[in-house]
């Protein structure tokens, strides 16, 4: 009751706010439906101008998923400012609250907006489905294949209180399929009770998960009439089905498969004349029987041979119920008992998901007459000398020899050695190693032939070390003198090409003529005087000068 009252209040408010001068009221009967239960929707419009007939109502209305809704009709009164539109529908199969979005009613002089309409579907509502007429979609439940012919039907079954008398308006919205009705409004099989059946064919044209929507209307007749039933009314139905579509598998697909999907049988070939003369055309008929996409099969081709000339078929598209005829024109070339060429055909069975091969068995024909003069069909080089080996074929395929070269040249892939990364990396690495080794040898040889380079380098490093130590040992006069003399001796020995230990003050003066003799004497005395018992200390001024000398020698190296 609470839901019902809130619905009524909402409906009233919406109607009041829809338009200043237009009033729109709607009513669903029954207000709450059971899943799959038929219902009626009535929309009443009151306007300030004469309305007339609404146009294209079905185009604007968008019922929610699973709900069927069709305009049944409009009550028209001349020059009336009121309009009443009746819709019939069938509730979705799932419980819940469904909303028909707001839509516009287009009248000749005015467009009026209809607010959202809500329908509640609940299982608590008592509804006996078998009492009502209902539509059922019959279609195989499996994965389909592109190009396959899917046969389905819509069974419109009468109920205990209703019977189906007619149907119309069957349409399909399916982007990934082609849809065609094969038989319309046929009586249902006896075991299914009263009703009508409409058969259709679907053919998937692209792979993926595609949705098929089929809409239609059935006319029902009821024995009793009351306010709440739909006696003598139309009832729409909508089916939406998601269908998985795949391409026919590549694995195991025969090379001559030409799109046949289904179960087929090949009947033996039939020749129009069993005793033709040489050169007399005969017609060869091959009949393919079975269920499947017969219309979409590309006729198998027969190649001409030494015995038969095969002309293109002239009646390829002639077909009957569940049968397809392939008609070829054959011209015999040689006399005698001959067999017509075998016709091979591959098909895919969607049930077993297997390919199968059919052969239209040859027909035996007795060809009379004489053979024409033998003509060598292989063209030879006219310039080649007679009897020579140079009679090369200019055209025609050579006899295949699949075993040739099989002993030493088996490949899984034909890739050039030049594409092998291993080849280039191994060769590049070897070349790099050789270049590196050559470089090392060259450098080592150069250094060996120029030893002063290494001597100077070592002396420079020694001097740098000495400068660092001397800077730290300024407060310690003996250590300072010892390190400084060592550094000066090392640097000057490298410059003079002499032994380090043999260096004296005079040798250092040869390298550094600007140095003061007294400073050097003081330095050497401080460094080595203790050995001779007259050790002295070195003054700060001399220390500074010594440092300058050390830097000077380092720079000379």
């Amino acid at each position, binding site marked *: 009751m609470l839901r019902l009252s809130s619905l009524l209040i909402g409906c009233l408010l919406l109607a009041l706010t829809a338009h200043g001068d237009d009033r729109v009221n709607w009513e669903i009967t029954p207000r709450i439906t059971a899943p799959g239960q038929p219902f009626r929707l009535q929309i009443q419009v009151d306007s300030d101008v004469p309305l007339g007939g609404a146009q294209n109502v079905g185009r604007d209305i968008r019922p929610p998923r699973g709900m069927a809704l069709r305009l049944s009709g409009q009550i028209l009164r001349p020059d009336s400012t009121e309009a009443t539109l009746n819709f019939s529908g069938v509730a979705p199969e799932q419980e819940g609250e469904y909303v028909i979005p707001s839509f516009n009613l287009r009248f000749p002089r005015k467009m009026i907006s209809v607010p959202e309409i809500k329908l509640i579907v609940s299982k608590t509502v008592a509804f006996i489905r078998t009492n009502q007429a209902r539509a059922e979609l019959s279609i195989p439940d499996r994965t389909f294949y592109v190009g396959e012919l899917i046969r389905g039907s819509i069974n419109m079954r009468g109920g205990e209180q209703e019977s189906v008398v007619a149907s119309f308006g069957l349409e399909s919205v399916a982007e990934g399929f082609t849809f065609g009705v094969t038989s319309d409004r046929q009586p249902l099989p006896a075991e299914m009770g009263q009703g009508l059946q409409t058969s259709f064919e679907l053919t998937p044209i692209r792979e993926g998960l595609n949705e098929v929507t089929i809409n239609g209307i059935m006319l029902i007749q009821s024995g009793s009439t009351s306010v709440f039933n739909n006696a003598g009314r139309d009832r729409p139905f909508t089916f939406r089905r998601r269908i998985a579509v795949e*391409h026919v598998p590549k694995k195991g697909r*025969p090379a*001559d498969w030409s*799109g046949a999907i289904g179960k087929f049988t090949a009947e033996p070939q039939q020749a129009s004349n069993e005793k033709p003369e040489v050169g007399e055309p005969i017609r060869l008929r091959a009949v393919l029987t079975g269920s499947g996409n017969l219309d979409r099969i590309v006729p198998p081709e027969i190649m001409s041979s030494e015995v038969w000339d095969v002309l293109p078929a002239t009646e390829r598209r002639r077909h009957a119920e569940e049968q397809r005829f392939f008609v070829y024109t054959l011209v015999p070339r040689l006399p005698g008992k001959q067999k017509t060429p075998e016709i091979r055909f591959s098909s895919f069975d969607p049930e077993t998901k297997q390919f199968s091969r059919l052969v239209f068995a040859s027909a035996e024909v007795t060809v009379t007459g004489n053979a024409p003069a033998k003509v060598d069909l292989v063209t030879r080089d006219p310039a080649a000398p007679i009897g020579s080996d140079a009679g090369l*074929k200019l*055209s025609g395929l050579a006899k295949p020899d*699949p075993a040739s*070269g099989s002993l030493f040249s088996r490949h899984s892939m034909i890739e050039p050695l*030049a594409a092998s990364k291993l080849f280039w990396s191994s060769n590049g690495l070897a070349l790099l190693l050789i270049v590196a080794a050559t470089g090392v040898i060259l450098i080592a040889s150069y250094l060996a032939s120029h030893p002063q380079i290494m001597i100077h380098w070592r002396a420079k490093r020694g001097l740098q070390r000495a400068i660092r130590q001397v800077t730290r040992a300024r407060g310690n006069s003996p250590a300072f003198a010892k390190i400084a003399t060592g550094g000066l001796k090392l640097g000057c020995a490298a410059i003079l090409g002499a032994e380090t230990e043999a260096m004296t003050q005079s040798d250092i003066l040869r390298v550094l003529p600007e140095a003061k003799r007294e400073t050097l004497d003081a330095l050497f005395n401080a460094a080595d005087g203790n050995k001779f018992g007259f050790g002295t200390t070195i003054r700060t001024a001399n220390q500074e000068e010594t440092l300058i000398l050390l830097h000077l020698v380092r720079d000379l190296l």
Partner: protein
Amino acid sequence: MKAFPLYILMIVATLGAAEPDAPSAGEKAYAKGDFAGAVESWQEEARHHGINPGLLAALGNAEWKLGRKGRAMVCWERSLLLDPHNAVALAGIRHGQNAGGVERPGATWTETYASVAGADLWLLVATLSFWAALGAVLLPRIRRQPAGEWNQRLRVTALTLLALCIPGLWGARSLAHRAVIRKTEISLRLTPTQLGEATQAVNEGDVVRTGRPFNGHIRVTTSDGKTGWLRAGEIEPVWGGGLPADLDQKAAP
């Protein structure tokens, strides 16, 4: 001891009288005109035992008989890459050009030169020549000995071979940059774009020279020198595969 020569004679006679290898299932099917069966049989053989020039050429014949020019040309061209003198593949390509209307770029002199041997052989000979020449130069220096007479001969031979290999390598490189058109009713495009203007029609089975790829397209040059762009999926390179690629996912007829 007297029986020994007789025994040898019997073995030789047995070997001489041995029957040639029985034809395979593919050969039988081909002979019967069941070309689809032959293709299946040979493809199965190729998948299990690898491919060789003869098998590819035979497969090309069967594919041609089934009317699949593109696949046939791929088979024959690949067969020639492995064995440039394969008679079946040569005849097939000639037949395709004469009777099938297939266009194929004429061979340049380097390509003709390269087709004397396979591309791999050229590269192997060039590599061996290079290393031999390098070794002949380095070895005496490492041993600190003057190069001997044999060393000089080796240097000259290796460098000559290397020089002879260069046009062969260039020709092999040029042969490798070719592809077969696998789709029917397509045209060269002026630009490598989805809506590129069609400039010239090309046919399935035609062989084209390939250039740089761009935007999912490849620049190609046809046998008559016209250049344009084709989608990568419309052609199949001659190098770089075994059996022809299954490009033509069959749509419903």
